[in-house]
């Protein structure tokens, strides 16, 4: 197959776009795992809920995309806080598996209810007027909306990284995961911090859902088809590593994009092949610490 440079550039850019979804979702997972030690299998369902809440805001309340960007994360954060307060809180002292089972079960219930109610074909969600159209870059047509998604998700990812790794609040958070009683002794309300962290992780998933609504099918399964890939991203990057999940998310998006060009049949498996290799060579993940 002849390789044309413009086509290759196009695929790289496309990969970056998909990577921004992977990064945004795996970031939420990493934050939750890093601070709560919960493997949040509800993440895909929460991403799906984000897209559906955006749809409801538009249909029932007439609030468009920009409002959705603001309101959906808040709604989802409340949802997350409720889950944490009512259910997850009781599991921290138990094995990881219990959290995994609970969140997985919740995901199945939420997806089942939505499939029953709205069917599998999905719902339409139109793009905001300002973000339609695109730029002709010479080697490809870049839709404005995709450019926006890359920029917005990069900003959010880096912002989150900065808060957790470089601010005082972040240092409390990190300390609380290491030694909760000690941090509590300094007068920090650790349980509340953990609740809010979970809410934040869920809000990130909801935000990714809003980003996805205008371009992907808004359907009950939209999360479950993506979440497995995102888990692979987290595993490759190293469970709980914030920067790791961001970098791996973008990098794997690009690798997947290139696979789609050179050998499309393998595009749905390439990430798992990489995961297997990483697990063999460096079981803690590329950015994980032992």
């Amino acid at each position, binding site marked *: 197959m002849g390789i044309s440079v413009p086509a290759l550039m196009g695929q790289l850019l496309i990969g970056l776009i998909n990577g921004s979804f992977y990064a945004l979702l795996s970031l939420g997972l990493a934050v939750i795992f890093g601070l709560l030690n919960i493997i949040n299998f509800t993440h895909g369902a929460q991403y799906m809920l984000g897209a559906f809440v955006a749809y409801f805001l538009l249909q029932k309340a007439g609030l468009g995309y920009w409002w959705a960007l603001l309101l959906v994360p808040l709604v989802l954060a409340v949802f997350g806080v409720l889950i944490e307060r009512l259910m997850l809180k009781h599991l921290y002292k138990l094995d990881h598996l219990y959290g995994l089972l609970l969140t997985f079960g919740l995901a199945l219930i939420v997806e089942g209810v939505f499939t029953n109610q709205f069917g599998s074909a999905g719902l339409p969600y139109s793009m905001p007027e300002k973000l339609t159209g695109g730029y002709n870059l010479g080697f490809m047509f870049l839709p404005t909306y995709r450019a926006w998604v890359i920029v917005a998700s990069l900003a959010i990812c880096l912002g989150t990284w900065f808060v957790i790794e470089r601010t005082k609040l972040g240092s409390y958070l990190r300390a609380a995961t290491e030694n909760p009683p000690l941090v509590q002794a300094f007068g920090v309300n650790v349980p509340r911090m953990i609740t809010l962290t979970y809410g934040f992780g869920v809000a990130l998933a909801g935000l990714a859902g809003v980003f996805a609504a205008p371009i992907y099918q808004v359907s009950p*399964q939209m999360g479950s088809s993506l979440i497995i890939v995102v888990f692979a991203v987290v595993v490759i990057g190293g469970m709980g590593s914030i920067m790791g999940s961001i970098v791996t998310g973008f990098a794997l998006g690009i690798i997947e994009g290139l696979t789609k060009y050179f050998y499309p049949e393998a*595009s749905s498996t390439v990430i798992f092949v990489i995961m297997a290799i990483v697990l063999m060579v460096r079981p803690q993940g590329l950015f994980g610490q032992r």
Partner: protein
Amino acid sequence: MRFKLKHLAAAAALAFAAGTAQAQISGNLVKIGVLSDMSSLYADIGGPGSLSAAKMAVEDFEKAHHPKFKIEVVGGDHLNKPDVGSQIARKWYDEEGVDVIVDTPNSGVALAVSQITKEKNKAFIGSGPGSSDLTGTKCSPNTIHWVYDTWMLANGTGTALVKHGGTSWFFITADYAFGHALERDTANAVKKAGGQVLGDVKVPLNTQDFSSFLLQAQASKAKIIGLANAGGDTINSIKQASEFGIVKGGQNLAGLLVFISDIHGIGLEKAQGLILTANFYWDMNDKTRAWSKRWSALNNNKMPTMVQAGVYTSVLEYLAAVSAIDSDDGGKVIAQMKKKPFVDPLFGKSYVREDGRNVHDAYLFQVKTPAESKGPYDYYKLLATIPAEEAFRPLKDGGCPLVK
């Protein structure tokens, strides 16, 4: 001596009666299995809607004919996996007394079920699957392909578009039995009509992002981008094609298998102008409207797809055949269904060929613009009727061993 003869005659008569009783309906119960994708990307095409269509058919049949036998409907979820589908089919046939399997979207699963059905001498009437191989090289005396197939879609849409100037094609194809068959059949129709195929890309089933593939299609400069996929894959590719300005750039999309549920999920704004082939639309005539509204009331006010309509009429016809020969022997019932033409309440004049193909008219539709549509599900306008004789692959071309 005379006395003995009388005994013998009575014994023979008894034996004969017992023999026919055995040939009759097992357990005096006809059990219909709706094997479908109940929870994933094809669940709105068949799925729970097919289950309720089958139940409607049973209800209507019982009301009209008061059969002597009992009828039961069960549903199963094949998860789009041929191994899961096969397992359910075997269990249904071997342990649960199921006599016929209907629906079964996903050609990969359908081909496996057709094989098992033949082994067990049961009946399989597929409304959901697309692959024309079901009545071609892989045809079976126990299988009827009820609604549409890849050849019909390919021929309808492919030929029509080439005639309207869509002479060069690029395919985005779902990477499994159905997608391959659809691409092959369409490519043949396009070439036969004088068009050419510039390239293709095979995409894994259930892909979220089609932008890479759309870019390749765009770079090919083909006039028509043929979407040889279905369900969620079609929705995602049409949605994203509009984003990448493909139609604005002068290329056109051809949805090779598009269901009304897909159009509903995309919205007219992005789907308008799309040309597609189908055998059924709810708003065709009084009968289709009346039935569809009944179905709609049971299914969250959605409108039925051609697959769901097909499940309804296939169950009706199957029960009529069982009742006519008073037997649920799979091979015999299917043979009975092939005997004479019938008028299908939703698909019109039909007949089942010896290769198992159910033949009826097909239609070329175009998706309305938002301005033309009067409300939800008012989506199609009729461009042309493709008469039954031309709509399906000629009997001799399929390579079915049953055709002599």
